[in-house]
């Protein structure tokens, strides 16, 4: 265990002495802190914040049927951006136990904005009341969902289908004043886009305020996997999001492997990493085209789409699926690399590298395009930190975090594995997010080449037991194309899935979009939105 982890741990023990019990876990470098009284949550959260930790997510569980007969809320923390690099790779879990008859907790959302959605989600799905929440409206369950029915409680039968009531006006902030106009958009949009509802308050073209309503694509997938074996649940998790299939599938696999204590062979870890970077590459390259579309630069739209298409065709040659589905599996990978495929990868990489530089060159020399990108949709660094923003959106605003370095996974965890050079920008506007993606695409190209030149030989997959050790917990973070995705998994008494929770990068980043929109005009909103490129399906699950 690194010295910095030990120092952090002793500081936490000191700060919370007398108020909590401590144990290691779920990971070997992680710490679990059990609070004696749930009412102590705000004070304990403040202490953890003072120790340099930031909130990654909340996980609620229904443990009424277990010996503990309670509901639990786990606040998962990680070292914040203020921590000196290299940051200790550790998660700190603060556990609060609640009375299942009156599950109630003081809200921390006023002081920790990143907790806002998490608390509302636990309120909708578990019926936990967060007192003094600044915005206690429902989040996940929409129109006419019956009161007192909480789908993630164990006693709720997932096959139950309450009637769909007609849509109601959702509570949103009303901006009043002379000339203020409210523009509702969505949930169904005029293009091939995922569904979300946006309520703009505008004066002329300027956006004063934006209230988004999401969770239209809530498919109940976390409930869907409960009771399944990890092997079956994997196929569901791999399909939470199309364009993060590798990242999410891998996070679930690593959580499973952590619970089962399985060591994944080094060749499999290298191939998984290759897939992660190919996924990042086709996403980033595609986003370049999408941002060009948002800026009405049609040459760029076509060039980006064509490069992305070549990469997706490569995906299909490698894995039989254009979204790289079917490669990662619990224990390792299902498919090997042949020398023919390696050649195929190298060819596509060379063409992508050339196309990327050409396109960037043209964009940087097109004043009419730059005019749209510069100073549009600015996300301030401090806002990004307060909201716990991650990935491209964070790094483009000068927030230096990347789970490949901060929570090493796949081959990044190997002593001999590749090391990612984390890139940041400072302006936090659309242009910064575009430039950053290009820099990261170049880094992905370098990493893939490095992986190919040093592929370890050996097995592709280790055996994973059909049933997991009872009540084992896995907690893993993966740097997806959109940023860190955090997976929490627990087995039940029979070794099947008791609870799985995913905090995707998009979930963490969505609340930043309305802030960035405040420096934009309505016609630029699609551009701002595309520069964040957040996904609805892995937010809504």
């Amino acid at each position: 265990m690194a010295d910095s982890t030990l120092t952090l741990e002793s500081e936490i023990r000191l700060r919370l002495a007398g108020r909590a019990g401590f144990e290691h876990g779920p990971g070997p470098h992680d710490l679990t802190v059990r609070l004696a009284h749930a009412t102590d949550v705000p004070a304990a959260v403040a202490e953890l914040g003072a120790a340099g930790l930031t909130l990654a997510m909340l996980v609620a569980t229904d443990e009424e049927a277990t010996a503990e007969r309670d509901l639990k809320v786990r606040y998962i923390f990680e070292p914040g951006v203020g921590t000196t690099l290299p940051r200790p790779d550790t998660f700190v879990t603060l556990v609060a136990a609640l009375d299942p008859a009156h599950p109630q907790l003081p809200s921390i959302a006023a002081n920790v904005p990143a907790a806002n959605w998490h608390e509302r989600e636990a309120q909708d799905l578990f019926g936990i009341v967060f007192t003094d929440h600044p915005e206690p409206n429902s989040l996940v369950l929409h129109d006419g969902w019956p009161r007192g029915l909480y789908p993630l409680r164990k006693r709720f039968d997932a096959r139950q289908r309450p009637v769909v009531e007609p849509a109601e006006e959702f509570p949103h902030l009303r901006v009043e004043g002379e000339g203020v106009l409210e523009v509702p958009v969505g949930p169904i949009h005029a293009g091939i886009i995922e569904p979300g509802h946006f309520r703009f308050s505008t004066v002329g073209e300027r956006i004063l305020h934006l209230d988004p309503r999401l969770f239209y694509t809530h498919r109940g997938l976390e409930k869907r996997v409960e009771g399944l074996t990890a092997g079956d649940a994997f196929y569901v998790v791999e399909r939470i999001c199309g364009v993060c299939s590798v990242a999410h599938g891998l996070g679930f696999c690593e959580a499973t492997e952590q619970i089962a204590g399985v060591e994944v062979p080094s060749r499999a870890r290298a191939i998984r990493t290759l897939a992660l970077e190919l996924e990042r590459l086709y996403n980033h390259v595609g986003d370049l085209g999408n941002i060009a579309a948002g800026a009405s630069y049609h040459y760029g739209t076509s060039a980006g789409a064509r490069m992305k298409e070549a990469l997706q065709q490569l995906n299909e040659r490698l894995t039989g699926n254009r979204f790289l589905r079917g490669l990662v599996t619990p224990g390792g990978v299902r498919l090997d690399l042949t020398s023919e495929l390696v050649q195929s990868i190298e060819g596509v990489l060379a063409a992508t590298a050339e196309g990327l530089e050409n396109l960037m060159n043209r964009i940087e020399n097109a004043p009419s395009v730059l005019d749209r990108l510069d100073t549009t949709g600015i996300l301030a660094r401090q806002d990004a930190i307060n909201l716990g923003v991650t990935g491209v959106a964070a790094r483009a605003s000068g927030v230096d975090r990347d789970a490949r370095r901060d929570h090493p996974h796949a081959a990044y965890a190997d002593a001999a594995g590749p090391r990612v050079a984390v890139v940041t920008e400072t302006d936090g506007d659309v242009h910064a997010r575009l430039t950053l993606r290009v820099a990261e695409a170049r880094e992905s190209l370098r990493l893939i080449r490095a992986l190919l030149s040093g592929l370890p030989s050996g097995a592709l997959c280790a055996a994973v037991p059909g049933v997991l050790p009872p009540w084992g917990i896995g907690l893993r973070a993966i740097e997806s194309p959109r940023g860190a995705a955090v997976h929490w998994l627990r087995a039940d008494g029979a070794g099947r899935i008791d609870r799985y929770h995913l905090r995707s990068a998009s979930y963490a980043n969505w609340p930043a979009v309305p802030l960035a929109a405040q420096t934009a005009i309505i016609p630029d909103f699609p551009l701002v939105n595309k520069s964040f490129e957040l996904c609805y399906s892995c937010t809504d699950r």
Partner: protein
Amino acid sequence: MLLAMLRSLRTGVVTIRYPAQSTQPPVRFRGEPQITTGKAFTALPPASVCPAGAISGGSGEPRYAIDLARCVFCGRCAEHALDGAIAMGREFELARRQRVGLVVEVECDAAGLTTARPSAPEGEQVAERIRRILGHSLQLRHLDSGSCNACDWELTALLNPVYDVRRLGIDVVASPRHADGVLVTGPVTRNLETAVRRTYEAVPEPRVVIAVGACAASGGIVGRSYASAGGVGEVLPVDVLIPGCPPRPEAIIFGLLLAVGRLRERRSRAP
């Protein structure tokens, strides 16, 4: 500007000629899971092997069926079958007019071997009828009813320079009022059910509903639950189902042409 034109000329034509020319997906592509006839019936894996619930029968029952509308093309059944009793084929032109047309079924014969059941006839004639109704172009409105976005991205790919469906008279339009029908992706979530109905109702008649991908066609891996209706068919009348998780762009083109009944016509004109 001039440079851009020169560059375009150097790139040449990147657009494929499907469906006029057939295409062969790569070797690893997982298309239709095919049940090999004449193998021991007991070599088929138990239905529980399928994570999407696409397999029924077996274990005592003398029939065994794979519902391609549910299938997510993971390849697990083929991996668990003995003696190659199921093989992942490369067939991707799987779109059909009816759900029954998507069920691959075998029986156990007296010798304990798998034998084919006469498959349900598929209605090219029905597609003909749609063509007569709609004429030669097809303007569609995309309707995301809760997809994972993979199907959506494949619809976007149809408009890229490689697939360019506009060359076939097919386009995706901004308003349902300008559309001949809807292209639905996703299993219809509870939170979108009202929006799905309303968008459909905004399309002038006659209109077609095309279910793109496993979720839209049957609920797919999502299934039916408190949050999901379990497929577009539960909410709207469906005209064409396109299996796949997601269907590759050419598979969607096949489905779209089936929808306009133009497939045969295009093929007979092929050089």
